């Protein structure tokens, strides 16, 4: 993918995230990895007013800001995550109601739903010390998973494409909602850890890419 296409996709997705309540206008943030560059939303322009010229470019290896307005303050976190997770090409901050509530509560969200186990992983952990101790604890809490909760600040979702990262954000919202609101019903019953891991494996092997293959 080239910078221009990535930028167009990013802007199109940012409007959908806004409409779906997944991103906040002034605080929303998403980015893409394009070769050795990070394309990220700027710090001082709300998502609703974003145009392709407003995106910031940062070199992945040197962290040098090369084009556009001041990048989002979380760009160093994005650089670090892309550095560690080679299969991620898209990152989204999820700020929907249940994800934010779960990040404030500070508890690990267990897999209570099959699609959470498949798309997010065997749990969503909370990076408790974000942002004080830098990206390290975020990356370790996200290890083996496609999402992590940032203490008090919602979640960070990553995947190979924007479309998949968006799906992770949607499933994370549902998983957090089920975790929170099932407590009013006597508590959620978690899926056995082995079955959750198995489902994730099967999903990644069998279903990813099926939308292209099964035609």
């Amino acid at each position, binding site marked *: 993918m080239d910078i221009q296409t990535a930028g167009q996709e990013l802007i199109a997705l940012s409007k959908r995230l806004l409409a779906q309540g997944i991103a906040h206008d002034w605080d929303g943030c998403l980015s893409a990895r394009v070769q050795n560059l990070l394309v990220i939303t700027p710090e001082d322009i709300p998502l609703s007013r974003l145009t392709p010229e407003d995106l910031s470019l940062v070199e992945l290896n040197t962290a040098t800001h090369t084009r556009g307005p001041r990048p989002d303050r979380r760009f160093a976190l994005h650089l670090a995550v892309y550095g560690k997770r080679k299969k991620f090409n898209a990152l989204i901050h999820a700020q929907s109601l249940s994800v934010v509530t779960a990040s404030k509560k500070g508890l690990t969200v267990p897999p209570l739903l099959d699609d959470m186990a498949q798309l997010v992983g065997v749990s969503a952990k909370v990076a408790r010390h974000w942002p004080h101790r830098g990206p390290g604890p975020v990356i370790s809490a996200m290890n083996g998973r496609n999402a992590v909760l940032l203490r008090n600040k919602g979640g960070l979702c990553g995947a190979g494409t924007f479309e998949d990262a968006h799906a992770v954000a949607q499933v994370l919202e549902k998983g957090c909602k089920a975790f929170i609101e099932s407590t009013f*019903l006597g508590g959620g*019953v978690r899926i056995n850890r082995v079955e959750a891991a198995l489902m994730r494996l099967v999903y990644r092997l069998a279903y990813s890419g099926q939308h292209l293959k099964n035609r």
Partner: protein
Amino acid sequence: MELDEAREAVYRAGLDLVKEGLVARTWGNISVRLDDYRFVITPSGRTYETLKPGEMVVVKMGDLSHEGTIKPSSEKGMHAAVYLGRPEITAVVHTHQLFASTVAAARKGIKGLSKAHARVLGSGVACAAYALPGSKKLKRAAATALEGDRRAALLANHGALCIGETMAEAFDVAKTLEAACECFIAQSFMEKYEIKGTDLPSTEQMHRFYLEKEI
């Protein structure tokens, strides 16, 4: 029903369910009875927006074999079990809708359906025992949960199964189920925290309370 008509009905229902937010991406699946032996179902792992009516797959109820090269949804067995057990049913919709999934995460049936909800859903809504997606165990559990005059079942840790004598009815069942689950969660919340009054709390209010309380 004629094959073209059935394919068109499944195709339209997919788009309508996406619009209503009851299914998204590749999640959930939809079918229509073709005759006493066959039904038409959405393909496996495809996004609703990219499907064409001609890509809907014809599946035999007896041995679950399918016509053509496109693979049917992996939940075809669950649909077949409904058609075989309930001759009056002509449409089956499996969704991953939010409120129903939350109740399903607690593996609870819905108690205290309102009269208006019971008119659409039948005498009650049960939760089918947990089983891995696509398994025979899930198919049997779902059929059991739909016994009698029931029109909807929750699938433990997964989602919901809604059925109707027409597609319009199955669609109405899915929407009513979502409303009934939303009420059930709010009522359970009021009972748990001994809150008096007739107004049900909003999701935002319940989350605020959750953050201030134990658990």
